[in-house]
């Protein structure tokens, strides 16, 4: 089983990408469980969402404390907490960070910085990089394919929203491929 923690602020689409990731895994015939955990129930408050992906039935319902992968949708959250400390060695983290941003370090963990907000802003004028970050995750881990993520978007959204988010996922995916492989 692979466990993924997504760290964000409420309103930044962490639940959306958790459900997209779960849907993509489901479409590939895998078992998946995606669920949120809120802190204070208001916009802007730190919150997490979690995804488990497995070939076997997933029964465990507790939160994820030792993730294989993390996605950090808002880099300001890195200031207060070391998200890497309990990660499984060899894991990978995907941080939404502009190219001029500082690079966090973590021993035994691959740290990938993806300017997901910049990608989103160029595409649709909003610094809403959640889906671009998910594209990079797909490129960096191969846990789900780009194609499955696009299909998951089509299941959840219609029209222009679907189009720009599919594009954002693709650009996040291509950014990772270009920069890190």
């Amino acid at each position, binding site marked *: 089983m692979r466990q993924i923690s997504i760290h964000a602020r409420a309103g930044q689409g962490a639940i959306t990408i958790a459900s997209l990731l779960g849907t993509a895994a489901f479409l590939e015939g895998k078992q998946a469980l995606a669920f949120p955990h809120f802190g204070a129930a208001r916009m802007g408050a730190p919150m997490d969402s979690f995804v488990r992906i497995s070939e076997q039935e997933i029964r465990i*319902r507790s*939160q994820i404390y030792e993730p294989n992968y993390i996605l950090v949708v808002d880099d300001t959250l890195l200031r207060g907490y070391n998200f890497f400390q309990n990660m499984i060695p060899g894991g990978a983290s995907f941080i939404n960070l502009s190219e001029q941003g500082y690079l966090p370090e973590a021993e035994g963990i691959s740290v990938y910085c993806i300017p997901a907000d910049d990608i989103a802003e160029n595409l649709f004028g909003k610094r809403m990089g959640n889906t671009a970050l998910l594209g990079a995750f797909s490129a960096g881990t191969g846990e789900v394919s780009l194609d499955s993520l696009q299909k998951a978007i089509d299941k959840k959204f219609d029209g222009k929203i679907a189009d720009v988010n599919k594009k954002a996922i693709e650009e996040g995916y291509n950014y990772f491929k270009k920069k890190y492989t």
Partner: protein
Amino acid sequence: MKDFLEGSHAVAHAVKICKPGVISAYPITPQTHIVENLAEFVASGELKTEFINVESEHSAASVVLGSLAMGVRSYTASSSQGLLLMEEVLYNIAGLRLPLVITCANRAVSAPLSIWNDQQDSEALRDAGVIQLYVENIQEAVDLHLFAFRLAEDPRVLLPVMVCMDGFVLTHAYEAVDIPEESEVDSFLPPLELREKLDTENPLSMGIVSDARFYMETRYAIQETMKEAIVIMPELKKDFIQITGRNLNVFFESYKLEEAQKVIICRGSVSGTVKEVVDEMRDEGHKVGALKLISYRPFPTEELYRALKNIPLIGVLDRAISLGSSGPMYTEFKALFQGKEGTPKISGFIGGLGQRDITKKHVREMFEKLDGEEITCEFINLNVEYLMGARKYT
């Protein structure tokens, strides 16, 4: 058809294919997504239902009381304070023998305010004459909603059925779920036919005053029906399995009880985590098992006794507390063995209040504690450093 759905959305689908004539609800977290989805189905014309917006949960429950009294299939949902506000009406619905199906998206009760999950709210309705079924996962939530309509409306039952699903942990989680076809549901769930209902052509009164000569018999009748439900539920379960081709537990699920020396009894979504630990500990050679309680009311006493009678060490995990006593399920299981031969040692644990996480480590600790002295009421994963002030809590 199999799909990857949010728990609330899946339940809304299940309710939709049962085609209630009236839905009335008032929003409260974490129940809101269920009725929001149903409202969308009504707005888009997918579901032909009278969706009645109200100003409080008390009114929502009153609306469905009225529609059921007219013989119309009805549905509502709530959580926590909202459910408590409904309580007065829910007692009436049970007393009037109206077959309501209600979802409780289980949430802690204030104060302090907590929107998060435990099972204190439905526990407060324990004695209302409402059948209570607790689900572990989203598939079970869907299946037990279909089952709930059939059970409530069975002419031999005619009692409200509450399906209890853990708030957030299930209502806001996404997983793969098989939603039955409408045609399957149609053959499982016949249209509601109430013999006695409000009708201007044949007027009658319901719920009128019943003085000391009559009242007690109405309670006796509900008690007898609860006992009969123990016989009826397996019958209806057979129908469900035949039509959907999917197994369904309606009383409880026994998990690796064969030759088990230690068993944890649990309820709701935490059961998955408990089963996971049972597998790990079995692999290490420990004879452990789990029992997931589904039907809390009626409490299937005989069946539970048969399942547990050879287990020497039992732990009961309550996600609610009867303050001043102990865990409500714990006392129930203690009573179950009272006066029986070879009574097991039964320990009671309180956990997961206000959605304090219960991890595999905590489940393992509970199993380990069963070897020691019998515990009546121990809080697990309690932060003792938070217990400040002049009073010493030990």
